[in-house]
């Protein structure tokens, strides 16, 4: 009984810590992906915004979907949601709890990406360099509109021949980076405060319902695992019986067709006969051939 309980606890804590581990790994992977990605702003008027905002928002969607795919509990939740009620009622609170815990875990990596992007600043500089007010910057103040657009679009590219020694370029770049980092830190602060409040205030509302939902969602997860294990066990025993029947039927057939003397000594029958009456090369070949050409039926009754 104790061992049973120990195993259960192990599964239970294990699946949660597995999910938290996956969450953490995805967050680290998102940072690594960002640092190894070679950001290369096109520095062309229409393409900058698309590129900058694309790099800021598409990888988070990808990371969110990855977070949902890699989380085993999302499958369990979907199955529970779509199953016919049958003899067991469905509890919406449990499904909602599972959904919210899955979503929370899946949101961590995208948020990390967005914050790292904002704190680094390259994306925003690329996307919004064409939208700054040229009047504020000396180098761009007195040029025609089209030219200004072209020049501003080239601000993210430090090595461009027009921009190499342009001090106004640095000014625009610093200005945009300042905004980007301020935005990044603000978002981080808001999210952390929200998480703190949610965790701290949760016990004040519906604690009992929460405990129930958590218990039953754990239960559904464990039940699923044990069902799979039991199926594994069952198929192994089924296979065992099936093969035994097969060997037995081969033995019967050989007895019928061959005229060999019956084995003397009932003692041989009393103990386990590993050879099962198959005692020469032809018989073995026949058995193997039968196994391939005519597998036994899936019936061990």
């Amino acid at each position, binding site marked *: 009984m104790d*061992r049973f309980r120990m*195993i259960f606890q192990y599964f239970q804590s294990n699946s949660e810590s597995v999910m938290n581990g996956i969450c953490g790994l995805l967050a680290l992977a998102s940072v690594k992906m960002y640092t190894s*990605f*070679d950001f*290369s*702003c*096109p*520095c*062309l008027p229409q*393409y900058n915004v698309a*590129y900058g905002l*694309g*790099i800021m928002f*598409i990888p988070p*969607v*990808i990371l969110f*979907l990855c977070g949902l*795919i890699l989380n085993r509990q*999302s499958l369990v939740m*979907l*199955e529970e*949601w*779509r*199953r016919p009620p049958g003899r067991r009622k469905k509890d919406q609170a449990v499904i909602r709890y599972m959904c919210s815990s899955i979503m929370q875990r899946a949101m961590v990596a995208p948020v990390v990406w967005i914050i790292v992007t904002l704190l680094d600043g390259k994306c925003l500089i690329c996307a919004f360099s064409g939208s700054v007010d040229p009047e504020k910057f000396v180098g761009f103040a007195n040029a025609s509109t089209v030219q200004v657009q072209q020049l501003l679009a080239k601000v993210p590219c430090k090595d*461009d*021949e027009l921009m190499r020694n342009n001090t106004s370029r640095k000014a625009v770049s610093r200005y945009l980076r300042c905004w980007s980092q301020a935005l990044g830190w603000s978002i981080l602060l808001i999210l952390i405060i929200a998480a703190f409040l949610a965790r701290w205030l949760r016990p004040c509302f519906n604690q009992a319902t929460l405990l129930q939902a958590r218990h039953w969602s754990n239960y559904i997860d464990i039940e699923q695992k044990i069902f799979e*294990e039991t*199926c*594994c*066990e069952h*198929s*192994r025993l*089924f*296979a*065992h019986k*099936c*093969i035994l029947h097969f*060997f037995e039927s081969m033995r019967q057939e050989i007895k019928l067709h061959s005229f060999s*003397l019956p*084995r*003397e*000594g009932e*003692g*041989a029958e009393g*103990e*386990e*006969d*590993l*050879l099962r009456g*198959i*005692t*020469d*090369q032809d018989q*073995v070949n026949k058995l193997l051939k039968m196994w*391939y*050409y*005519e*597998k*036994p*039926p899936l019936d061990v009754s």
Partner: protein
Amino acid sequence: MDKFRMIFQFFQSNQESFMNGICGIMALASTQMYSAFDFNCPCLPHYNLAYGLGILLVPPFILFLLGFVLNNNISMLAEEWRRPQGQRGKDPSVLRYMFCSMAQRAMIAPAVWVSVTLLDGKCITCAFCTSVPVETLGNASHSHLSQGEIQRVLARIPCKEIYNGQQLIANEVAVRYLRCISQALGWCFVLLMTTLAFLVRSLRPCFSQAAFLKSRYWSHYIDIERKLFDETCAEHARSFAKVCIQQFFEGMSTDLVAARCHLPRKAPADAGDAAEKLLGITDQGTMNMALKNWHRCKPPLHLHPPALPTGNGWAGEGQSPLYSSAPRRETAAYYSWV
């Protein structure tokens, strides 16, 4: 019972994590291959496209096939597909399930290669540098070069050292443009693959969960049955060999006795196991003859019925029971978690 379950769980997770591990290793191997590969754009008008697209598409195909080759279950699938029906019907949904799981795992490394290639940008830059819109990005109207000349100049864009078209279009501008397109394609490809994977995984419980459970159970069953059959045959072969060799030595011993016409020395009653193990062969000449006969004239694969194993059979080793009640060394079958 508990221990049984614990061991099963361990092997089950082990097999799964083994399969996922192979998948992950191949994905890492494909990124490593890409970074170790020395990309060398030919910088010639028609060769660029072939080289660039070749590097983009041929290695993924190789990695896909490799993914199948490294998967142990491919032979199981082939066997199940080709076996004659016999007394057991064939279920196409099981075959489909097995094939789909294998294909899904094999697709990961090629997808990683294509994404890394697109996000890096060298292949697309090489392949499409001759299609850069010179009118919008450069000064097409100012040059007096023929179309072919322009193509040749543009083809050299990836090779900065020999590029001579700075008046036509700046090298950095063209490279940035092409790389931007390549990275956009790369991210869209990754998004598409991830969305597909998500849809496949999440739509399945909504539509065919019962059929899925069935296919999964029977594919697992086929794998376990095959392993158990192999184990049973191995056991059988072992017993067969044991008895065959025992009969050989007994045959030798009887022959020797008949040839020498002397009564076999009765082993003293208290010599015990050691004398029995000698099987009547007690000197060098006899042993040499036994070894020679074993090489020159192996016994037929046919066991004599009276000599089938009795209680104190062979060499002190007890006979292993048919199926011990303790859990066997069993690996659980292939499981798909996609």
